[in-house]
């Protein structure tokens, strides 16, 4: 039994918003794989919870009229991985969230919960950063859209205002079209782990597959919140494909990342792995895009 003060179950998004306003101290619970664990640890013991788990309207992936990919915030990781639209347009996101925890966690865990946590190690976050995703928040006054890079404020803190609920994650067509991505989760074991480092790279190649038109790379656990490595992106943009380019791309991430020392891993180790992971993820993304290094 959980030490919760009260449980409010939202019947609809509007109801959730109303509950948020009525109980400003209450914590939103989506799948619960983080919130319930923290409650049991004592960190959130005695808290009030607003459960949005029953809001089926927030589940599923769809394509909007302008080609924007819309992922309902309560879509579970396993459903994202299996979704045909995800597989077609941002397969790397499906692959990334297929490395969260284990199968049961991927059935309960939601992309909304994963991002609202504000933790840097979230397996979905680096790929969403690398695709310039937008976060949709619904509140009393309607919908507000925030670029994911602004949504993350600091470790554990995201831009959700009083009365708001995250309702979707959006990826624009411009962002995903003709791109191929690869995610490398660096962890201490092959399942049931959190990332020591998450590296997500996607590239768009020129029509002749000889040049990089655009490359993006984002990391989890290379700073207090997920981040992009723009120096590396600039290094690759417009460059001719070569093995040296992959090396240079990897080396350039050093300019932008700032991992810290913790008992989980040392800064220099994370730095080393980031360089190698960026290089490898870039090479794989290029391969997927039909290019040769």
């Amino acid at each position, binding site marked *: 039994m959980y030490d919760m003060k009260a449980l409010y179950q939202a019947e609809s998004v509007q109801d959730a918003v109303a509950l948020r306003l009525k109980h400003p101290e209450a914590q939103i619970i989506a799948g619960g794989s983080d919130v319930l664990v923290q409650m049991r640890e004592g960190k959130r013991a005695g808290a009030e919870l607003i459960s949005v788990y029953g809001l089926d309207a927030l589940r599923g992936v769809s394509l909007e009229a302008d080609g924007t990919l819309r992922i309902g915030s309560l879509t579970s990781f396993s459903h994202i991985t299996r979704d045909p639209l995800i597989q077609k347009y941002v397969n790397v996101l499906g692959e990334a969230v297929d490395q969260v925890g284990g199968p049961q966690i991927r059935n309960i865990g939601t992309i909304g919960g994963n991002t609202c946590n504000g933790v840097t190690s979230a397996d979905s976050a680096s790929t969403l950063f690398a695709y310039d995703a937008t976060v949709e928040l619904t509140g009393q006054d309607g919908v507000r859209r925030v670029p994911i890079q602004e949504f993350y404020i600091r470790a554990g803190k995201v831009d959700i205002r009083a009365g708001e609920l995250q309702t979707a994650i959006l990826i624009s067509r411009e962002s995903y079209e003709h791109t191929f991505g690869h995610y490398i989760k*660096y962890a*201490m*074991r*092959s*399942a049931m*782990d959190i990332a020591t480092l998450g590296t997500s790279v996607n590239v768009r190649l020129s029509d002749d597959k000889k040049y990089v038109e655009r490359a993006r790379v984002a990391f989890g656990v290379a700073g207090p919140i997920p981040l992009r490595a723009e120096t590396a992106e600039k290094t690759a943009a417009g460059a001719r494909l070569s093995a040296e380019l992959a090396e240079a791309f990897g080396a350039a991430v050093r300019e932008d990342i700032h991992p810290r020392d913790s008992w989980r*891993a040392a800064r220099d*180790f994370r730095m080393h*792995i980031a*360089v190698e992971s960026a290089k490898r993820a870039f090479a794989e993304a290029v391969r997927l895009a039909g290019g040769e290094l």
Partner: protein
Amino acid sequence: MSKSVGKSVARVDAYEKATGRAKYMDDLCDRSALVVKICHAAIAHGYVRSIDTAQAETVPGVVRVLTCFDVPNLPFPTAGHPWSTDPAHQDVADRLLLNRHVRYFGDEVAVVIAEDEVAAMQGVRALKVTYDELPFVLDVQKAMEDGAPQIHEEFPNNILKHTDLRKGDYQKAILEPGLIRVEGWYDTPTVQHCHIENHGCFAYMDAGRMVVVSSTQIPHIVRRVVGQALGLPWGKVRLIKPYIGGGFGNKQDALYEPLCAWCSTMVGGRLVKLECTREETFVSNRVRHAIRTHIISYVRPDGTLVARKFEAFSNQGAYASHGHGVVAKGMGAFPQLYPCDNLECDCWSVFTNRPAAGAMRGYGIPQAMFAGESHIDDICKAVGMVPLEFRRKNLMPVGYVDGFSKNELYTDTFNQCMDKGMAAIDYERKLREYQNQTGPVRKGIGLAVFWYNTAVWPISLESSSCRMVLNQDGSLQFQTGETEIGQGCDTAYSQMVADAVGVPLRDVHVVSSQDTDVTPFGTGAYASRQTYIGGFSIAQTAAALRERILEIAHEQTRMPVSNLDLADGQIVRKSDGRVLKSLGDLATESLYSLENSQHITAETTAQIKSNAYSFGCSFVEVEVDIPMCKVKLLHMVNVHDCGRLINPALAEAQVHGGMSMAIGYGLSEELKFDEETGRPLNNNLLDYKLSTFMDHPTLEVGFVENPEPTSPFGTKALGEPPACSGAPAIRNAILNATGVAIDCCPITPHVLYRQFKEAGLITD
């Protein structure tokens, strides 16, 4: 006589476990139980100055709050060792139910008893504990320094015990010209057993006696310890062991049974339950001793060992628990595995402010093998010998007899096991193939052997008792004090009983649960002893039962006993093989006889004054991704000689589990502590890296079956041996792949990063 022994019959408890019907501790506890939650110290060392319980007592649902100021001053030992009537050989009694002197981060300082777990935890969080803090020490050698924090007053320099072993003249022998000196330090980590069922127990008073139902490996020993801790005569305590979800040595200690029983007495004998959380299991049960080992070997260029020095520093943690026995066992293996004429060996068990270290699968041998077998490959590298050839030359020879235990190596076990392992992994071809590799990803092959001896004689008592009760239908129940905790002894015993009595396996019913009120005495599951030791009492009791049966058969059939046999549940006339009657008919006639009613039973105690070596080896093939600092296991083979296999399929399964534990030990598992506070950092199953389904290669198992001559069933240790040689084999495979001699386990990416950098394989 063997009809059942040697066959891979299904576990006797398979149906119950496959359906979820098997009842473990919590399944048996009535829902009316009060819940006990422990307040654990939030400092690593110091004294509790005060505990303000006022607020906790107002929490709705809280029934009673008890603190370290309330407990009886009755120090008790916790180790799951047989009691010794000689005070000099008794375990160190350094425990109280709750502690004012806090010796590790997580020590028990108070309990809250409440109507449900939420109220109990709210009560715990509402306690206000103040401490007088003292400096603490986590490192084993720092704890031995003068001026180090003193953890137990009666043990200067925190040394629980030091023992040594000398042979020949080391100092003189090393003067021989031309010797090659090889020196190494090898560190092994603090790890935890991680049985999937946490330890827990419930207790209540019944007819003036204390009844405890516990997830334990050692019911008869825990009964004694509960008596000692509460100041109760041992007969006033009844201990019941239901199905157990794994133990691996952690439950070979009295854990929270004494505290739970005491809590019951403090609420009028009501039913109380104390279930450990996973976080508590990691820190406040027992852990494996982290041992730092220093070895120096002097070797002739031809690979002859001339003189060797061995020093082991065993991190005992906060309490004595199993104490010095663990590192001493490891040191005992050193001169035997590779006999050498000149030796200086020392080992120390040292208190630190870490969780108490106790028994864990292998009992000092995984640590000793990691150090010893890593060192052997370091010698091979120094003298330029193939690791397998060095072992063939130097390992314990056939006919070796240990002077203390009188154990003898009767057969060419090591070579037989290594031959089998080599063939399975294609050792020679791969060794050639993996020479002179370059590039970022390299493969390697390695091996390690292990030494293990079965059971605890002659250090401690070895005895086993068995009872058999014949039913009217010719089937029988049997009980032993030895305990099924998942390893499969109930099944192996059933097979032994069937053959030893002469009945079909289907007519043998094991009483799986131990209840100290009704189960004959036995010391429990540890030291890989049960199949060996239990075999003696089963053979002896079966013989006694057969004697009674044949005596009655003589009365009923008028044939002389010498012409009668019991085979496959039938009374047979030996001279012509005719079946005279079924055992069922005999039993029914005997029980309901109006002249001479007999309930046919037998019960005997066997004391065992022998012991048996159980040897084997591991072969491992790895792929090392140098830039990523990652090791992938490609192939792993264990080969064991545990004598005759009682149940080959269960034996193989048990080896898989040990190999898995060795993989974690070698590559990923380590309980970590904050150097600033002594706080455990990763006491949960997410941050503590138990290997998962995806971290394993296919596990291959081979057996060499040399029947053990001292055992009635030709068997010897298998429970612990599979966990002993895997980690050094992994380490040696990495050495083969990269040329880097790793000095510790687990060999995590952090370790590889550091050592690859030092070796120049990685440049940042």
